[in-house]
């Protein structure tokens, strides 16, 4: 049996600092306050804050007496997402992960040595994974869950306890590591029991007589002998990170720093679970200012309190930089209407797609890079045209007789087989070059055949004409019905000859030049 434990000391502080790029857990003195607004008290603090004189339970006024300590309000949402992130670290190693306490998880690593290597190596990997998720954690590995828990609580860094040595290695730990009720702690203190060694050495029967079965259990814990069943947590698939800002952000640039930090955390959690995302939702909580006109006093309409943006990608990604760039471009196009007070990033997981490139296949644009390119192109040329068709994408011809029927679909550079073509080289075909929208024209007819076309301020004689080619459609729909008469005309101009397609809209009789054969 092998169990691993990741314990995050001062978890509320680390959870608050995890998404904050400005403060450092080790260097800065930080205290987390909790309680009603008028009775805020120190809920947790880090070592630097303790050195500065801060202790849990101090009032806000007392804590503010230490100017070097940064005070933060406790956000339970942040702690929940930090705990989820911690569990994601564990799921990267084993499917049996227990959420033991807030800031502490226990992992069943039995049988993973052959896959992950020796125990010291597993310990290092756990530490690295926790660090990638933004935690400075203590790691312990031992043969039973409680021994790993106490070793992780009591020793800093990575601790590996070989089987059978639990009692000897845990002996030096202070009795506070057991996190006992005050009553039992007082009793043990009055007997002079200060550490695990002293508790383990107590005679069993007198201890049971005084403290009952609980006392016996405590002694077995101190000896590292308790074998219990792990209670695995139900794996969640929510990858959600949030941050409440102390001061509302108005500009997109500082907001990008916040988004970057949150996206990095989401990406690290996705990596830990070997997942990617193709759908990211960003909720920006806005600080609404309701303006009231002086004297008359009507309350003007308040802006929406939530600005929601969604990114959908054709290819799942784990790259936080790609997501950030796409979000920046999206927010530049659709900025929030008020200063941002809260940011929530949620990634919906998808499986990573693996592709095998062929040696003889030509180069293709990188899917993730292409997504940014598409967003930049949309920002450059616009999103939609007058008909509501996309301005960037690949054209797909609609199965219709209506002229110029096409849609523009999102382009993706997935490797797909080229269309089957005949083995012989096909003949070169001349194509139409359209005027979009068609140019209004006037046409002189001679015996119902175009004799001259006037458009763009010129009158051009028709040398040859072919037509009329009549077509119609959507007659059942009054708004969409169309009917027209097409002609291919050869026009003799000063600059040379040109063959154009002209058409007449039959209900109105208006002539247009649709394009030229070029």
């Amino acid at each position, binding site marked *: 049996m092998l169990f691993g434990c990741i314990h995050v000391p001062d978890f509320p502080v680390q959870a608050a600092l995890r998404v904050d790029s400005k403060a450092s857990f080790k260097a800065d003195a930080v205290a987390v306050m909790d309680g009603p607004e008028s009775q805020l008290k120190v809920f947790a603090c880090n070592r630097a804050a303790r050195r500065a004189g801060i202790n849990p339970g101090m009032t806000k006024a007392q804590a503010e007496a230490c100017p070097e300590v940064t005070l933060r309000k406790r956000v339970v949402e942040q702690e929940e997402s930090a705990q989820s992130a911690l569990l994601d670290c564990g799921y990267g190693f084993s499917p049996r992960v227990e959420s033991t306490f807030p800031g502490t998880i226990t992992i069943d690593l039995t049988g993973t040595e052959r896959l992950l290597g020796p125990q010291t190596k597993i310990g290092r990997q756990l530490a690295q994974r926790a660090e990638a998720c933004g935690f400075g954690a203590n790691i312990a590995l031992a043969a039973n869950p409680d021994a790993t828990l106490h070793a992780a609580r009591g020793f800093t860094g990575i601790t590996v306890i070989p089987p059978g040595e639990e009692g000897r290695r845990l002996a030096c730990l202070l009795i506070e590591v057991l996190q006992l009720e005050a009553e039992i702690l007082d009793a043990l203190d009055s007997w002079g029991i200060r550490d695990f060694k002293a508790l383990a050495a107590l005679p069993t029967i007198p201890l049971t007589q005084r403290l009952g079965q609980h006392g016996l259990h405590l002694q077995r814990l101190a000896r590292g002998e308790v074998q219990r069943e792990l209670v695995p947590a139900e794996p969640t698939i929510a990858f959600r990170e949030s941050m409440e800002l102390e001061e509302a952000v108005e500009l997109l640039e500082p907001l990008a720093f916040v988004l970057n930090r949150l996206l990095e955390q989401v990406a690290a959690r996705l990596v830990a679970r070997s997942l990617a995302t193709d759908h990211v939702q960003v909720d920006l909580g806005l600080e609404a200012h309701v303006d009231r006109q002086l004297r008359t006093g009507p309350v003007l309409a308040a802006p929406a309190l939530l600005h929601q943006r969604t990114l959908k990608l054709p290819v799942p990604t784990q790259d936080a930089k790609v997501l950030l760039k796409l979000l920046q471009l999206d927010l530049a196009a659709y900025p929030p209407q008020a200063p941002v007070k809260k940011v929530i990033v949620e990634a919906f997981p998808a499986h990573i797609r693996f592709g095998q490139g062929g040696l003889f296949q030509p180069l293709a644009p990188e899917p993730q890079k292409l997504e940014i390119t598409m967003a930049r192109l949309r920002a450059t040329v616009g999103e939609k045209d007058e008909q509501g068709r996309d301005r960037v994408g690949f054209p797909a011809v609609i199965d219709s007789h209506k002229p110029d029927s096409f849609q523009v679909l999102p382009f993706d550079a997935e490797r797909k087989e080229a269309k089957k073509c005949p083995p012989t080289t096909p003949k*070169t075909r001349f194509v139409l070059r359209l005027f979009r929208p068609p140019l209004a024209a006037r046409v002189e007819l001679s015996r119902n055949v175009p004799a001259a076309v006037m458009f763009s301020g010129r009158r051009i004689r028709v040398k040859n004409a072919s037509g009329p080619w009549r077509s119609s459609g959507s007659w059942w729909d009054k708004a969409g019905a169309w009917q027209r008469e097409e002609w291919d005309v050869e026009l003799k101009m000063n600059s040379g000859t040109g063959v154009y397609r002209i058409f007449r809209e039959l209900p109105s009789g208006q002539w247009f030049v649709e394009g030229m054969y*070029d």
Partner: protein
Amino acid sequence: MASIAVIRAQIEHRLPGALRASGHAARETFPTGIAALDRQMGGIPQSVLTQICIPGGMVSGKTTMLVSLMAQLTRREHFCALVDVSDCFDPVSAEAAGADLSRVLWVRCGDKKHKLKPLEQAFRAADILVQNGGFGLIAVDLGNIEERHIRKIPLTTWFRFARVVEKMPTALVFLTTYPAAQSCAGLTLHMAGVEPCWAGSGTVPHAQSLVEMKFELEVRRTQLRKPMQSVRQKFAAAPVWA
């Protein structure tokens, strides 16, 4: 009197490589599907800026050549990008001409509400596409833009594009009304003139149809083959409905 061989040896000694064709000669090309051009040049070169010039934006076969090139590339599983300044690309006839449109990224400029002018949009879009890489062909269609606007594009812009594309296996093709890229272009083609061929009775227009168009093509400038011989060639194209 020194023989040519001696003079050649002396020049080679003083200026190594002066009489040798430049290294660009070995560049790979993409066939255009137009036999006249493929025979003479091998097609449109990779890693080079190519300009196809059409004076006055007249009917000349420029779009036919571009679509034919796209059809050849997409058939070889390459991806193409088309920056369409005047939004004049016709997907229906391009598909009928053999282009696999699912491999064509179409960038339609000309949004009147946008702060940038279509020409500026086109160059910025081309820049973004060149930076992305991975495309076999990046074509910028400036065929409807007036010559006076094309002349205003600084030479440094063309030079930058030529230098960037030099290291990429991409053919960068500009359709313009004026050969503004000058020496930055590795290949300059001029297209002019068209001869439509009609079949059927001239008196009954409904019985008459366009069966072929002949276009004229001239290689004006190339860094790929020296000495360059400017030869006018004609190529024929059939209608998509034939």
